[in-house]
């Protein structure tokens, strides 16, 4: 047979590995800072600058860990494994370089723009439209390079890891494009194309599947490659991996609505989300067991080898998180966990345990290979393993505890039927847990720093192998599939077919959930008294989004006695029809704001935003002094109103022309009321006036009509 010689490139895997570890360290450090901010609000430094408040820092942390740390981790594995599995170098070096540098450029743009307050206000999709476009382009470059490689391969069969990479690529592309549909208002400002309930459904279809197809399936690809490599034995059952793959991608995409249980999302969509989430246990555990059973008869190695130790805990955490996920999607469990620290614990079992430990194991295995040497210190790596494990436990346990504690306190009534605790009492009682969690995070980060040292030392003792030579025969053109392998040859050996089928399989779930919510009118019963925001309120809402208030405050009251008693009438789908984007939030570090309008006077908000503890002693909210200096960006009113009308918000024709007059009139009203009633002197063009206008509007429309249900 015609033998061909070729070279595997190690440069890009090395670059991606360095980027992964670097951004991982940065992202985790930001997480530790954000964790301490919740216990010690002074660390927001908001007296000095607005850039580091929790509301802006937390999205940088989440984006850095998901897209920078895990993203670069995926690419490291892909650029190392795919050429070796297909016996061909990556298709195009230039595309590879564009991919690498483009992705790092996106990360820098993301970090800078988020800290500056440019955000779309949708969790894990906060980046503004120019960066969204850049992500799409770089993702296409990555796809081209991957498919170019697959199409020029010397191995007919696509190993299961590659299926996971293909499905991840196509699904992430679909999710990113659908969820990022936004109407640009200016450079770095846009509004989500969807509104209210529909926006929520699309967002959590995206949010859930970002976890599925960015944090899970590509890492399963890495597991199916690196775990057998490290254990030096093939995967336990290749047949099981086939079932794992198809059932996982078939079921995962449907489960998004479990993030919206008990909200104003239609009941049927919530039920679909729950049903599919429960079914997800089977493929997930199939995959976990496949990973763990791969080590059958090799557990003596696990005792010795730090790489395998990391893999075992990673796969176990995958199993724990994928058991916990379906449990959290049961309505009665979700009633406790939603908006609480339980969710935070759950995602960190996944992020620190599954993604973190799998990445560390991969790095401890890969870096010595790339530098043709042995790991500098196995002992140090084992220390990292124990420190990391301790860090995860110290992170997660306080969060579970805090979640239950706050649930019991929030839902407690006195015998007279009054709520037993104020919100601030609950905040005060969970602060010690926030401190413990922050210490857990710090311990985990210390382990990562040990790894950095260990890997740098490893690299220094060896010499980098830039390319590796290999030979293999070219793909035979006149190949005949063996008998009995019709299905097999139809899909597995045809990458484009695999791509299309994956897209169809993941597309069905999204379509079935979304089309009815968009087309069937009864899904969002309209409420006649709900009107569009005034220009001043719209500007105030944009400030609310800019400061990332949704990171701590929800705007969605669930129909529970203890929520209605605390916050007011439960939220209805029809209340959010003009909310581009929706701001329901996912965590209540602060109280729900869905009925905040009219609850307090303007002066309360004025004082509270300047010094939260003055109005609410013991509050951990940062102050926002910049809003008392900066003026409302009136120049943008015109294009904002125009954009809203384009998306169907019923502002009168040519309202743009007089919008700023209305804005000034309302602002003057608020400023003079503050002066007359509370002797507070503030110019009416300051941002705080707009924010007060918005806060006083939230949730009040429904009070204007006698029968709020339909």
């Amino acid at each position, binding site marked *: 047979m015609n*033998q061909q010689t070729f070279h*595997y490139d190690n440069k890009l895997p090395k670059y991606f590995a360095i980027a992964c570890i670097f951004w991982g360290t940065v992202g985790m450090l930001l997480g530790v800072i954000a964790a301490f901010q919740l216990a010690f609000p002074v660390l927001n430094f908001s007296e000095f600058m607005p850039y580091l408040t929790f509301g802006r820092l937390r999205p940088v942390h989440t984006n850095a860990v998901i897209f920078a740390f895990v993203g670069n981790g995926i690419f490291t594995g892909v650029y190392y*494994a795919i050429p*070796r*599995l297909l*016996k061909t170098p990556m298709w195009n070096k230039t595309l590879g370089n564009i991919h690498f540098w483009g992705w790092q450029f996106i990360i820098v743009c993301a970090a800078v723009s988020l800290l500056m307050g440019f955000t779309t206000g949708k969790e894990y999709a906060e980046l503004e439209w120019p960066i969204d476009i850049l992500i799409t382009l770089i993702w296409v470059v990555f796809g081209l390079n991957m498919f170019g490689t697959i199409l020029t391969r010397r*191995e007919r*069969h696509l*190993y299961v*890891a590659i299926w996971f990479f293909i499905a991840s690529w196509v699904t992430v592309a679909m999710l990113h494009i659908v969820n990022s549909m936004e109407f640009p208002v200016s450079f770095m400002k846009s509004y989500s194309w969807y509104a209210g309930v529909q926006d929520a459904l699309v967002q959590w279809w995206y949010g859930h599947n970002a976890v599925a197809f960015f944090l899970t399936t590509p890492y399963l690809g890495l597991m199916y*490659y690196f775990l*057998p*490599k490290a254990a*030096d034995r*093939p*995967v336990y059952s*290749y*047949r099981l991996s*086939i*079932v794992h793959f*198809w*059932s996982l991608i*078939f079921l995962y995409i449907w489960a998004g609505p479990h993030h919206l249980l008990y909200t104003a999302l*239609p*009941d*049927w969509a919530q*039920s679909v989300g729950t049903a599919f989430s429960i079914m997800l246990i089977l493929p997930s555990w199939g995959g976990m067991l496949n990973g763990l059973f791969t080590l059958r008869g090799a557990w003596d190695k696990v005792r010795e080898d730090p790489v395998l130790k990391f893999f075992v805990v990673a796969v176990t955490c995958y199993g724990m998180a994928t058991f916990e996920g379906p449990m959290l999607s049961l309505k009665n469990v979700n009633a406790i966990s939603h908006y609480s620290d339980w969710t935070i614990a759950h995602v960190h079992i996944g992020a620190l345990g599954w993604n973190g430990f799998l990445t560390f194991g991969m790095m401890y295995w890969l870096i010595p290979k790339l530098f043709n040497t042995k790991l500098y210190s196995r002992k140090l790596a084992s220390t990292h393993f124990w420190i990391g494990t301790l860090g995860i436990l110290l992170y997660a346990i306080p969060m579970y505890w805090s979640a239950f504690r706050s649930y019991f306190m929030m839902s407690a009534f006195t015998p007279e039927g009054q709520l037993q605790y104020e919100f601030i009492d609950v905040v005060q009682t969970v602060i010690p847990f926030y401190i413990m969690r922050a210490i857990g995070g710090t311990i985990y980060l210390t382990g990562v720093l040990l790894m950095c040292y260990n890997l740098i030392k490893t690299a220094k003792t060896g010499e980098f192998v830039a390319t*590796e030579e*290999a*030979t*293999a*025969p070219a793909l035979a053109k006149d190949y005949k599939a*063996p008998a*009995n*392998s*019709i*299905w*097999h040859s139809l*899909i597995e050996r045809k990458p484009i077919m695999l791509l299309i089928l994956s897209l169809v399989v993941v597309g069905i779930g999204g379509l079935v959930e979304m089309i009815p919510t968009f087309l*069937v009118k*009864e*899904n969002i*019963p309209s409420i006649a008294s709900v009107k569009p925001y005034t220009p001043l309120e719209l500007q105030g809402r944009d400030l609310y989004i800019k400061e990332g208030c949704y990171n701590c405050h929800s705007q969605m009251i669930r129909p529970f006695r203890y929520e209605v008693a605390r916050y007011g009438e439960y939220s209805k*789908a029809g209340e959010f029809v003009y909310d581009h984007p929706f701001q329901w939030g996912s965590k209540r570090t602060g109280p729900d704001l869905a009925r905040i309008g009219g609850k307090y006077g303007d002066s309360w908000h004025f004082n509270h935003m300047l010094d939260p503890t003055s109005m609410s002693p013991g509050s951990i909210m940062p102050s926002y002094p910049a809003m008392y200096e900066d003026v409302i960006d009136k120049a943008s009113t015109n294009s904002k109103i125009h954009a809203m009308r384009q998306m169907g918000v019923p502002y009168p024709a040519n309202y743009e022309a007089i919008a700023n007059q209305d804005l000034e009139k309302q602002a003057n009203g608020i400023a003079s009321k503050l002066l007359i009633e509370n002797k507070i002197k503030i110019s009416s063009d300051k941002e705080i006036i707009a924010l007060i206008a918005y806060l006083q509007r939230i949730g009040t429309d429904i009070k204007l009509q006698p029968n709020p249900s339909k």
Partner: protein
Amino acid sequence: MKFSTYLVHITGVSIYPLISLCLFVVFFFLMIYWMYSIDKKEIERIQNLPFDDHKKI
């Protein structure tokens, strides 16, 4: 807000759950059939692919 309230407005609605049940059953049966149809030797070769990279054949 109950799904059934507007489901009843769709003509021939009872066919949809049957279609979806069939879709699911067919999907999983095809997958399982496919899985078992793969030749044992072939499986063995495929699952050893990760170890094939440095061999100069």
